[in-house]
């Protein structure tokens, strides 16, 4: 009896040790490449540093400066606009796609793969192609609209409500919508897969019960599907918001602007927080200032995520 309990105690300790050893590479990587740099950047935000000359302590000056920079507020507005439009659009369309591919047809896997492909393609390649698609004169989009005799009526309609014509990346108003279209398109597949997994986790039992009660298609969706999907929806919502606040690549490539020195679109209409951080760090050589902005971004995203966690009890049903 003694020997048996002795063995189980030793094997438990041994298992823990083995687990730690396996985890060690990841933990070391995390400490060195994620945790340490994060805290270093927090420290750095109180300094002024251009990499080549020594550090200079400036206290909270970087934060004071960013709160008095009109461009920072513009950048916040642009990013907020991007998040507010792209997240709901992305969630709705990916849910629709998930419902469409959630059928037991023979070659449905082909469609699931096809919808997922944009997610894994290089953003650089995607952005370059879409830049050409959005070209106001020869691009695929405006050409199709024109051939369908829709371009002129649309532009006139826009003109009558005081909006400029659809010149996409050349227009201060339409450049950001163009970026939103590309971003939503690229990420649809990922959220679709999440929703698909969630849909397939809903037991048929619920639908059968609803049918017996005489529920219509819409009622089934509203009272069975949506509530049962709420954990997935919560996950997609949180991840989408966190991700979209950090939009960078498509903006950097598609709205590069003059000489690659000042990306951000016509009149800075597509300048986002991360792009602002990047420009100040690597074009203006202001590492401390950029670090300060990065931590403000962290606080913003953290606040949003915290709010979502608090509110989830109100609408997310588990189990």
């Amino acid at each position: 009896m003694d020997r048996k309990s002795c063995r189980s105690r030793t094997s438990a300790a041994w298992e823990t040790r083995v687990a730690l050893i396996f985890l060690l590479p990841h933990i070391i990587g995390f400490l060195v490449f994620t945790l340490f740099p994060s805290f270093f950047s927090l420290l750095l935000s109180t300094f002024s540093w251009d990499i080549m000359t020594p550090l200079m302590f400036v206290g909270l000056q970087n934060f004071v400066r960013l709160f008095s920079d009109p461009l920072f507020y513009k950048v916040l507005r642009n990013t907020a606009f991007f998040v507010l439009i792209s997240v709901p659009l992305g969630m709705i369309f990916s849910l629709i796609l998930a419902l469409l591919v959630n059928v037991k047809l023979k070659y449905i896997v082909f469609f699931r793969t096809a919808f997922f492909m944009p997610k894994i393609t290089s953003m650089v390649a995607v952005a370059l192609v879409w830049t050409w698609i959005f070209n106001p004169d020869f691009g695929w989009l405006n050409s199709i609209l024109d051939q369908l005799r829709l371009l002129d009526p649309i532009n006139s309609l826009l003109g009558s409500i005081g909006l400029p014509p659809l010149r996409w990346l050349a227009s201060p108003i339409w450049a950001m919508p163009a970026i939103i279209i590309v971003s939503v398109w690229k990420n649809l597949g990922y959220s679709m897969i999440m929703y698909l997994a969630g849909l397939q986790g809903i037991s048929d039992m619920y639908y059968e019960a609803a049918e017996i009660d005489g529920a219509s298609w819409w009622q089934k969706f509203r009272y069975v599907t949506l509530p049962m999907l709420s954990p997935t929806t919560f996950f997609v919502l949180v991840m989408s918001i966190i991700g979209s606040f950090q939009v960078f690549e498509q903006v950097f490539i598609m709205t590069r602007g003059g000489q690659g020195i000042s990306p951000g679109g016509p009149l800075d209409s597509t300048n986002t927080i991360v792009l602002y951080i990047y420009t100040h760090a690597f074009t203006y050589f202001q590492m401390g200032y950029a670090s300060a902005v990065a931590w403000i971004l962290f606080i913003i995203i953290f606040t949003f995520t915290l709010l979502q966690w608090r509110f989830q009890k109100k609408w997310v049903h588990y189990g």
Partner: protein
Amino acid sequence: MENKFRKGSLTLSILLSVSLLMIVFVASSSAQKVVTITYSDWGGVEVQRMFTTVIEKFHAEYPNIRVEHQNVPGFTDNRLKLLTRIAAGTAPDVIKMGSEWFPSFLVRGAFMPLDNLIASDPDFNLDNYYQSVLNYHKWEGKLYGLPQDFNIQGLYYNKKLFDEAGLAYPTDDWSWYDLVHTATLLTKREDARTMQWGVAYGGTPSALALYLPWQNGGEYLDRMTNPTKSTVSDPATVEAIQFIADMINKWKIFPTLAGTTAQSAVDMFVTGRLAMLIIHHGVVPMFREITDFEWDTGRIPRFRYPANVLNAAGFAITTQSKHVKEAWEFLKFLVGPEAIAVVVEAGNSLPAHKGMTEMIFSPEPPENEDAFLAEVPFARPLPLMKDFPGWWKIWNGELEKVWLGMDTAENAAKRIDEQVDELLKQ
């Protein structure tokens, strides 16, 4: 007795060979110490190939210096990489950098002045190089870089589109008004979309505005190196800027913003949708592959006076370099005739070495290669200042409103002056 002898001779022979090896090792390492230096630059596959050839030639001539080539595809990535390596204390020995960026680095002590090295080296003659290109790398009386090549603006035109419209080709003394008149006839619109543009610039109009004022006798800074005051409100400068805006918004012969990133203007020309393109010499190798139509070049049109802009990249030695002597040998080689011959052969740029001008003439198009050379005496470098990116942000930011037709050049000029004067005070 026999065994002892064998054991003894074995030990002896081992000792002998080991000491022989050690002697050889010590002798060779002290006689021919190979120094390795690192050289970093940017560029795609073709540029890489060119520099690999150059480095191979260097290795043949200087067997005791090895050059480690570190190439990064994009210019921005190159700048970032250089920054991180300087921060880590492992900066490359020799670097290539875009000329407008030199001041940003050298005022922070990243590059070392070359004057002493040049003065104490009898083999090197600074007079071989075009003064205007060298000026790019001078700062407060010291020279920080040397150029291999440079680029200058020219006018490319699509002969087929001209023939179809029955128009005469651009001449070497064309004025901008001649160009506007011709471009108007060559711009074809179909409702909301312009199917063919008359003229475009290979870049944002704000870059064209960097040298058009010079053609009108206007300046936008009190001096071109380390300026102290912004003078955009100068009427001649305002007139030039407004002219560009009119080409876009009034006469509509010049595509608006999105259509004028360098790549799309070039694409437009290559696909036959653009009659005239103003851009530097770098597109010539690409244009030589055009089969759909014939093209040629001419001098850029002029306002009141001819004026052009120089673009160059320079090579510098970093202050962190631990092998300055070897780095200097390599730098000399890089800007010497052998290396320049390799780089300029493809036709992307023009040699900065005066003795090599015949190199640029080849049987391939363009026929009117003279047009570029003729512009050289009138070409000036871009402004050199500590915070070029900050200045460009103001310049481009305010001028964008003019290009979008939202404001006049005069108002934008006043705002630029205000903000730039603030910036220059720092």
